[in-house]
């Protein structure tokens, strides 16, 4: 009786009769999210199975924490975590600094046509796929024909076998990431700079503030909101690497794994070449959980410092 009235109460609140059209309109998206986002979440139980793709999730045996033991017993877990986090931290800080600098400088240019043209060029790499980027990088680094080696030889140095020498790759990956992403970020910041009211600057000029002071006391504080949103989004993703950058730009070269292997490439390789789907899922679960905690923490930190800029 109690149960029945509760169900009736819920039905009444849902009010299908009045809003049936809205339910129908929302249905395709709700279903798609359920199938392609929620079902894989339940699939994470595979992390605790001796997973066999052919047997499937219902046919595979449960082996409790063996996959995790296996993952953390090697140095792999440490190497991929270190690589993923340290590259992402460098990417985030460097790109943020350069993008803010670029956007402030772009905003000062006298010629608006030049500024527009530069903006169009800066943002171009954002539209290229990592496959294309990897071929562009290859045209610079290829051992025999590559532009850099030709340049080195012309200057009297020896060729470098770039795709076999791990020591160069931290710099190459940072350079490629900045090349691809900094312009896009700069345009995001530029869009918010152009929303700042001229009045602030007029007052500053009357007060005799220099350009540097204007940037420090007016422009940067106005960018604070957008910077903190971008920061939360990227800190939450610190455990998630750009798969294309780390897989295809180094041409998946085994010699480079110590400095190019990240969580995402490790999962991919565990699934496709090592055929260890159980451990790949375990690594994925580890990535998802730590990533989720990081989002919560960074949002909490931001909401402490400036509540109005927290995302949720």
């Amino acid at each position: 009786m109690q149960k029945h009235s509760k169900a009736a109460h819920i039905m009444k609140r849902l009010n299908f009769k009045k809003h049936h059209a809205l339910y129908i309109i929302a249905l395709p998206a709700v279903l798609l999210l359920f199938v392609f986002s929620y079902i894989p979440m339940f699939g994470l139980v595979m992390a605790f199975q001796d997973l066999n793709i052919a047997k499937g999730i219902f046919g595979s045996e449960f082996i409790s924490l063996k996959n995790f033991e296996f993952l953390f017993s090697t140095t792999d877990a440490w190497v991929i975590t270190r690589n993923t986090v340290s590259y992402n931290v460098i990417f985030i800080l460097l790109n943020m600094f350069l993008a803010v600098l670029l956007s402030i400088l772009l905003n000062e240019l006298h010629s608006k046509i030049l500024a527009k043209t530069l903006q169009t060029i800066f943002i171009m790499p954002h539209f290229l796929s990592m496959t294309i980027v990897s071929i562009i990088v290859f045209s610079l680094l290829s051992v025999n024909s590559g532009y850099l080696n030709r340049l080195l030889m012309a200057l009297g140095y020896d060729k470098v076998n770039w795709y076999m020498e791990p020591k160069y790759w931290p710099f190459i990956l940072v350079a490629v990431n900045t090349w691809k992403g900094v312009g896009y970020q700069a345009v995001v910041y530029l869009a918010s700079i152009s929303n700042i009211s001229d009045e602030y600057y007029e007052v500053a000029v009357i007060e005799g503030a220099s350009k540097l002071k204007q940037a420090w006391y007016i422009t940067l504080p106005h960018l604070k909101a957008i910077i903190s949103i971008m920061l939360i989004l990227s800190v939450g993703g610190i455990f998630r690497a750009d798969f294309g950058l780390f897989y295809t730009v180094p041409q998946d070269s085994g010699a480079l794994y110590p400095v190019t292997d990240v969580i995402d490439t490790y999962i991919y390789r565990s699934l496709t070449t090592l055929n260890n789907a159980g451990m790949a899922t375990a690594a994925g679960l580890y990535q998802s959980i730590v990533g989720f905690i990081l989002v919560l923490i960074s949002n909490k930190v931001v909401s402490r410092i400036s509540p109005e800029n927290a995302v949720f």
Partner: protein
Amino acid sequence: MAAERNFNQISCGWNVFISVIMILVSLLIVLPLILVVIISFTSPESIVANGYSFFPSEFSLAAYKNLAKTGTQIINSYKVTIFYSLVGTFLSLFIMSMFAYVLAQKRFPIRRFLTIYTFITMLFSGGLVPSYMLNVRYLHLDDTIWVLILPGLVNAFHVIILRTFIQTSIPDSLFEAAIIDGATDYAIYFKIVLPLSKAGLATIGLFGLVARWNNWFTGMLYIDNPKLVPLQTLLQKIQRNIEFIKMNAEIADTAGGLELLRSMPTESTRMAITVIATVPILFAYPFFQRYFIKGLTIGSVKG
């Protein structure tokens, strides 16, 4: 107004200095792209003799002629990419905008629940392996065109952007008036929401189109059938195979290996494929630039 702006301008000397630096930065960005284009127009002999160069000793259209002659796979992949990019983006816009409209309705009883339902998928995901298992083992989407379309149809972040766009650009009173006039929700969606959110749809459409055009990963993971291989995946495979053979000298030295290498596209042909895979997206961008930059500002409005 103009006078005030001039008043706050940097001096001419600084302007020249900053302009020069910015132009140098833009060269740094654009020169590698230009190198690829030039290589695609360089004759194979010139590459063997001098490597890749901005000023090759001999230009040639051989790579593009080669493509036109032997490029059935490339043309096929081009068609696949165009098809799934357009169909996927269209379906995705349709489904996401309907959902965003519902989420923007304050009268809808489970609006809050569905917003959280959507938001959670941005924070937490099952990851690669469970999705792979689902698509291959249970939905049997591998080696079908559907795997390139279905899984990416609803992007939570884009839904939230569209919802915010509808909330801020269409006043509630307009919806209320339409309901009083007896309009159904379907009519409201087609006659009010769609026409009034063109700018938001164009932005999200551009994001979606670029992401689909550039997607090489899905093809690499799920597609084996040559008839369904997308352009970017094809490029990835070509590059990978050539590198694999070159790096493994033992294979390259055998007669079969040499034969295989010879049948691969030449370096300039590879660059030509790169160029034709990139040109459409770079040409489309300036037309969309207005929407794109507007979209960046919409995207920065918090959900």
